[in-house]
């Protein structure tokens, strides 16, 4: 996986393999259960997992969520109990109480270590209880934070229908209401709607984003005459997109490398390798790349991007010439670093829990190119960083802003260092042209807040003797 490093200043990569903090990948449950409305997520793990979701992620059961823990007890660990029978008991209860369209089993470190054969158990149980069971190994041994979504989507990719007619029949059976709603619509109107699109090979997008973003991105592509045939994940499990051989697929999130390779290898789809639609620059590059593989001439993208940049000017004035340091948390770091470089910031370091240079190749290239064009030094990309070492580097570099996980935010802030929680970028709507403003709203907030407090005369709130 080599990059075409023709630029004078190439990106420097380092794998520190240090002790670092980020969220456990089971945290993906927090946004996926909301996204997939007819799902139920069963996290098969210990009290450690449960308490994490409850207290650190703050996903309490307050909203009657469709997720639960299958809490492994001593008898399960020592294999005195039969895994199949135990899981069957729990899944039957879930079926009775909630009747979801799919149960997603989230494997954890514990199920990995005790080698619980979830993939082996699920087909039998699925047949027995009559609800599809998808198995995702979102464990902390192999993955970090947002990669949990990757494991779930990769598993779901296997369940997407491969032929449209089959899917239609299924939909008719299940989605009676949709059919009723379409009933009144005349055929000509449907044709008219179709005619707004260019005739191109089917395109499916993958990555979980909030519904408003789905609409925005879909409409953005429609402007180019591109029809999005489906999203993985869809709003409902029963409406998973058709994935035929030769379909084009494009990722919307930078942490979905496993899903991408599953789509290519198992579903024989063609991956559109592009920078990610984060920031107006990334969004434009993403759409352009999709247009180019679909052989469509992009219309008005340059103007659209310029207009967005114009509208961001008030925020840009705050951050231009300032520096930012990414400790590394949610794998959105490279895309954000590229966007902020374009905004006129200097990026000191991009920490990242895991770097797939192939899936992120186009993004890395754009980062390098952006640095070159903006005349800023290229940042060092540090995979699996060591948080202790990073903090020493932060003391030395004195960046204007540190984007960090929740564990280090308050201690850094107490030492007079502006911070923003990386988690907020995970949950905010950051994709597409118009949401660039939301990214900058988040990025500038600590700077705006602290500049309104700066005349008070106390920016360090720890005693001098203990800076470390």
């Amino acid at each position: 996986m080599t990059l075409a490093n023709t630029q004078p200043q190439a990106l420097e990569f380092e794998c520190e393999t240090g002790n670092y903090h980020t969220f456990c990948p089971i945290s993906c449950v927090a946004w996926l259960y909301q996204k997939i409305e007819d799902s139920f997520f069963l996290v098969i793990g210990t009290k450690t997992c449960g308490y994490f979701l409850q207290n650190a992620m703050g996903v309490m059961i307050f909203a009657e969520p469709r997720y639960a823990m299958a809490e492994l007890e001593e008898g399960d660990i020592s294999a005195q109990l039969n895994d199949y029978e135990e899981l069957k008991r729990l899944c039957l209860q879930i079926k009775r109480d909630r009747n979801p369209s799919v149960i997603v089993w989230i494997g954890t470190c514990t199920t990995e270590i005790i080698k619980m054969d979830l993939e082996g158990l699920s087909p039998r149980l699925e047949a027995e209880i009559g609800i599809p069971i998808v198995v995702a190994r979102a464990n902390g041994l192999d993955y970090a934070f947002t990669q949990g979504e990757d494991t779930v989507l990769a598993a779901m990719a296997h369940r997407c229908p491969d032929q449209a007619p089959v899917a239609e029949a299924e939909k008719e059976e299940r989605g009676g209401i949709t059919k009723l709603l379409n009933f009144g619509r005349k055929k000509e109107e449907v044709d008219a709607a179709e005619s707004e699109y260019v005739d191109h090979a089917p395109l499916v997008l993958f990555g979980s984003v909030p519904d408003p973003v789905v609409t925005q991105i879909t409409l953005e592509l429609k402007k180019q005459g591109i029809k999005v045939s489906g999203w993985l994940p869809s709003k409902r499990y029963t409406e998973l997109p058709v994935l035929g051989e030769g379909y084009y697929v494009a990722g919307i999130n930078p942490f979905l490398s496993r899903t991408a390779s599953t789509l290519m290898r198992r579903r024989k789809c063609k991956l559109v390798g592009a920078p990610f639609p984060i920031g107006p620059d990334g969004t434009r590059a993403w759409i352009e790349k999709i247009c180019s593989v679909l052989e469509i001439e992009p219309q008005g993208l340059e103007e659209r991007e310029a207009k967005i940049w114009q509208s961001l000017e008030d925020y840009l004035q705050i951050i231009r010439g300032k520096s930012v340091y990414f400790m590394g948390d949610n794998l959105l770091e490279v895309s954000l670093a590229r966007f902020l470089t374009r905004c006129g910031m200097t990026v000191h370091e991009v920490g990242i829990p895991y770097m797939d240079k192939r899936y992120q190749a186009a993004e890395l290239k754009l980062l390098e190119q952006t640095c070159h064009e903006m005349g800023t030094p290229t940042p060092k990309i540090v995979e699996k960083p060591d948080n202790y070492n990073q903090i020493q580097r932060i003391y030395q570099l004195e960046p204007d802003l540190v984007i960090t996980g929740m564990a280090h935010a308050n201690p850094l802030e107490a030492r007079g260092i502006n911070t923003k929680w990386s988690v907020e970028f995970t949950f905010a709507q950051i994709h597409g042209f118009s949401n660039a403003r939301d990214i900058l709203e988040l990025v500038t907030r600590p700077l705006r807040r602290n500049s309104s407090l700066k005349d008070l005369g106390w920016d360090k709130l720890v005693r001098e003797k203990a800076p470390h």
Partner: protein
Amino acid sequence: MKLAYWMYAGPAHIGTLRIASSFKNVHAIMHAPIGDDYFNVMRSMLARERDFTPVTTSVVDRNVLARGSQEKVVDNITRKDQEEHPDLIVLTPTCTSSILQEDLQNFVERAQIDAQGDVMLADVNHYRVNELQAADRTLQQIVVYYLNKAKKKGELPTDKTEKPSVNILGITTLGFHNNHDVKELRRLMADLGIEVNAVIPDGASVHELKNLPRAWFNLVPYREIGPDTAQYLQSEFDMPYVDITPMGIVETARCIRAVQKILNEQGADVSYEGFIDEQTRFASQAAWFSRSIDCQNLTGKKCVVFGDSTHAAALTKILAREMGIHVVLAGSYCKNDTEWFKQEVSEYCDEILISEDHGEIGDAIARIEPAAIFGTQMERHVGKRLDIPCGVIAAPIHVQNFPVGYRPFLGYEGANQVVDLIYNSFTLGMEDHLLEIFGGHDTKEVITKTMSADSDLSWTKDGTAELNKIPGFVRGKVKRNTEKFARDRGITAISAEVLYAAKEAVGA
């Protein structure tokens, strides 16, 4: 396997980390996969901690799994020893390290060879104990370690402090209002002329632990964390302890009297009766407040209490004994403390429930329909759904349990705070009463927020008009009760008469 939606107590390693990171200059190393160190997040985000949490994960990943951790854990211990020179490094087992069955004790011994500071393995079985039990156990383990060490070196002091003195045991980081409670206890001890010899573990140095036996007695304010240490100090050093939680006016007095007895047995000549009387009747507002006309309307109101042993038992006593409120159900999630809890609250409530299943408590609340709940965040949530107010009195902790202002639960100021909490949780006394007399003041509002389209009952014009006169915050409940009354009696149209009949019958 257990289907779980909610946990009242966390896993064991959280307990160990709470103890380790409460001490000054003690570092914890976890042998765990990525993400299991979310304790750091809880300290930084919930407790708004300014310092970096002294907890480092020695990451277990696929490589470690394949080859064994080999030197990794040992290296991480010695590295931390050099970087930050902690007095003690506590190697913390996790659910992962337990299953891997690596010989952590061996790692500790090897690391100890190179480390300047002390290194120990927290001796907790991750699958058998919860957060609270592990914390209790780890605190005792660290105390034993340093007392044995001092004994070996001949550094163990044999004398007692000149003036009466106390060790306060079990104050920890991420404890429910612990940071405020300890301030209040220090103040109380100062008022009683008792020196505070040590507070452990919060803010204590492990080097001070050898001085623990110098105190005249130990005070264990919470039943969950501290008793193990107190019992050890009693059996090894013959130190008496007081484990009466000074929460509420009556229990605070009982605690002070127990202290008085212990001090006098050791030759002090103290009498705290005057102090107790002065505090109870004049200085503290709690006793007077519950006697005031304001609180009269709380008499006989029904409530449900649920929490850890310490807080649930104390609140039950305060409600029943000090405020005349009817505790229908008192419950605790501390299963290991069932016997004590039953014994403490049985005379103050109708029912007792010991359970870790939030559903069971929720069902009980729905059945009882109390006027107020005193419970955890979970019961607050249940209350929201049922439209019943809830005061939060116990962990699991939430960011709301770290108020910036002073909110102790213990001592005389704590008694004031608790009374405020209770009073404000009920839809208010006098206000309630006046609204009842004058028929409310928001008659133009919609009747209720609930939809009754699916109901088989209808309200007549005058029935609706009457319902409209009932103050908004109780209207929903009155409506529910009246409809239940009507349904039970086969009445299909609810008139004003039916409404009042129901009111008489069920006191709606």
